[in-house]
């Protein structure tokens, strides 16, 4: 938070008046350094809004942290009560008093005991105050509540002039003073003290809206200094007062390119395989029982597993219950709590107002310095605030988280389909990544589905995936996209079975047809063989024919020679030749008859 003060333009720090830090968390940032040093400050507010505690914190921190002793003049509470009251904050006033770092003086003015006769002044009070200041060397003074004098003394005109003198006197004493005053009807203070204390006026307020009270603080006036002019929520709890300087840092925060795993490998795969951007805001919307907390638990588990810290703001379940439930899906959150990496902050949404919730979250984040936070569910805060406030609150929270590079996961419970929930409509534009979880009813069963509606700055899957809660956490199944749309659950199984059967039939058909083709091919091959055999025999025939014709020609030639010889020789010599001619002739004739 100190960064806020440093981030201010130098003109706000260097110029102007010297300041006295209060030590109140956040207040010194709002006022850029604290209260005007050496001057009185008017602290007004109605009963029970924390004026006394504010003053006491100023003195306690002054004595302990800034080595500036203080004086507390109380008109209403007994010192013993006062010491006891702040004892619950571990402010050990007794010790400070013993160390001469604090003086407490109870000024008791009882109108029933006092009669007035003639002129008087408040020199007695001045002497007491002066003595107290001198006794501890005080640099700080708180007067709580000086207006009690108005009910104790009759002469108001005199009182007013004496108070004016008192404030001047405090300035001369060079002490930084807080004067508390009750808020009046339509005026800052009941007796118009703001007329006298003009340097710095702070208003504390405790408004109740729809039965929820929210404490707010505003610097109405700060002469000679810049200051935040908004109303800042503050909380009073066991750590004292914490003011939240909810100055929206605007849109100047750095954007990190680093990635943070969602803790669900399948979901990371949908986000470019890397997960969310570091410092981004993730909204997980879904109906009851759609698995939002489980997605959140995975995220927590992954952050803690990487050795970073994480805060889980539980709005509806108690931490032991969350731990037990997550164990059933195989996530052991208790171990991270034990290691000090995980901090559960369980607060009912209607415990206090929206601003206070926000303020508390701010403080937790600033203290614990987590790498990631989970708010489960953010929609619960709707009941803690007027609808329009949720947006501005989240805006400030998201800005703050981005500035500190804290990755935030918000779950959003929607009774109706997630797209139309009020919260979702309001805050979705602030979110970098938006996961929708459906719980769709079909065929008599509900099936969980996950859809990544948007994820700024990265390519992401557009598929609706079925997700299954198993003993090993969330598993995303590949979407079944068939002719009948995206199917899940048993419908998906049925469709898958049908598909298998159809595939089998197709397979068999193909086999049958390939067998047919094989058969035909074989037939054709056989035919080719037969024809080839026929062709070969034809060739043989032709060769034989050719050879026979050659033989016959030779025979004829021989016959002619023999003929010629026989005409010249004996008939016996011609006989073998005739036989040979007859033989070849009969064979030739036989062939011819076959062909015919």
């Amino acid at each position: 938070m100190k960064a806020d003060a440093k981030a201010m333009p130098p003109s706000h720090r260097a110029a102007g008046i010297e300041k006295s830090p209060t030590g109140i968390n956040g207040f010194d940032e709002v006022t850029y350094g604290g209260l005007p040093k050496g001057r009185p400050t008017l602290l007004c507010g109605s009963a029970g809004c924390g004026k006394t505690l504010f003053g006491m914190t100023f003195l306690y921190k002054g004595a302990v942290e800034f080595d500036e002793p203080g004086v507390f003049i109380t008109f209403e509470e007994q010192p013993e009560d006062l010491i006891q009251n702040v004892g619950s904050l571990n402010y050990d006033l007794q010790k400070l008093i013993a160390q001469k770092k604090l003086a407490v003086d109870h000024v008791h003015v009882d109108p029933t005991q006092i009669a007035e006769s003639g002129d008087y002044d408040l020199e007695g009070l001045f002497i007491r105050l002066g003595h107290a200041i001198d006794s501890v060397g005080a640099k700080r003074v708180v007067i709580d509540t000086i207006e009690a004098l108005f009910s104790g003394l009759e002469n108001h005109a005199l009182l007013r002039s004496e108070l004016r003198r008192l404030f001047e006197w405090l300035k001369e004493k060079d002490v930084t003073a807080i004067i508390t005053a009750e808020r009046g009807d339509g005026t800052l203070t009941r007796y118009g003290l703001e007329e006298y204390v003009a340097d710095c006026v702070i208003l504390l307020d405790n408004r109740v809206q729809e039965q929820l009270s929210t404490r707010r603080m505003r610097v109405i006036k700060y002469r000679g200094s810049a200051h935040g002019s908004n109303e800042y929520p503050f909380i009073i709890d066991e750590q004292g007062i914490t003011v939240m300087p909810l100055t929206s840092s605007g849109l100047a925060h750095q954007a990190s390119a680093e990635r943070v795993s969602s803790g669900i490998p399948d979901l990371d795969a949908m986000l470019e395989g890397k997960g969310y951007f570091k410092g981004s805001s993730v909204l997980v919307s879904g109906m009851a029982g759609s698995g939002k907390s489980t997605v959140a638990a995975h995220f927590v588990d992954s952050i803690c597993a990487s050795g970073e810290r994480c805060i889980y703001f539980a709005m509806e379940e108690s931490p032991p219950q969350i731990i037990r439930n997550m164990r059933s899906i195989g996530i052991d959150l208790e171990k991270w709590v034990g290691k000090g990496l995980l901090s559960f902050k369980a607060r009912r949404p209607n415990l206090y107002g929206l601003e206070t919730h926000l303020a508390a979250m701010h403080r937790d984040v600033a203290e614990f310095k987590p790498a990631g936070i989970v708010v489960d569910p953010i929609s619960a805060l709707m009941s803690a605030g007027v609808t329009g406030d949720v947006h501005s609150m989240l805006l400030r929270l998201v800005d703050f988280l981005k500035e500190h590079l804290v990755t935030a996961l918000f779950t959003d419970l929607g009774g109706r389909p997630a797209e139309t929930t009020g919260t979702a409509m309001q805050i979705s534009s602030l979110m970098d990544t938006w996961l929708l979880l459906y719980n769709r009813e079909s065929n008599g069963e509900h099936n969980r589905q996950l859809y990544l509606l948007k994820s700024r700055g990265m390519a992401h899957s557009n598929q609706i995936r079925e997700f299954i809660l198993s003993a090993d956490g969330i598993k995303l199944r590949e979407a079944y996209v068939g002719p009948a749309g995206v199917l899940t659950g048993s419908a998906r199984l049925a469709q898958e079975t049908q598909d298998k059967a159809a595939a089998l039939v197709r397979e068999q058909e193909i086999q049958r047809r390939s067998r047919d083709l094989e058969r035909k091919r074989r037939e054709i091959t056989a035919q080719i063989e037969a024809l080839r055999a026929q062709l070969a025999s034809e060739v043989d025939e032709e060769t034989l024919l050719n050879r026979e014709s050659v033989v016959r020609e030779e025979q004829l030639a021989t016959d002619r020679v023999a003929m010629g010889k026989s005409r010249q020789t004996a008939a016996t010599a011609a006989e073998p030749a005739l036989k040979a001619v007859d033989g070849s002739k009969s064979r030739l004739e036989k062939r011819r008859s076959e062909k015919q």
Partner: protein
Amino acid sequence: MMDSDGYNLRLYVAGQTPKSIAAIANLKKICEKHLPGRYEIEVVDLIKDPALARRHQIVAIPTLIRQLPEPLKRIIGDLSNVEKVLVGLDIQPS
């Protein structure tokens, strides 16, 4: 000199201011007139002993405290209004 219904009065002042001086004078005059011989006045200057202011719950100056008779009574102012002083101290005018 003190008897059972004697008055023990303590007047707190802060230095020699006109109001203080007037208060002392007024007180003496009233006592002489209404409580002759039955009173004792002690003037305490808080400038000299400021711690007493806290111990005795003094806010306004001058403050007159009737220590005796009981109960304790306080009157603030320069005591110029005699009537109020007599009522405040529960003195029957003589």
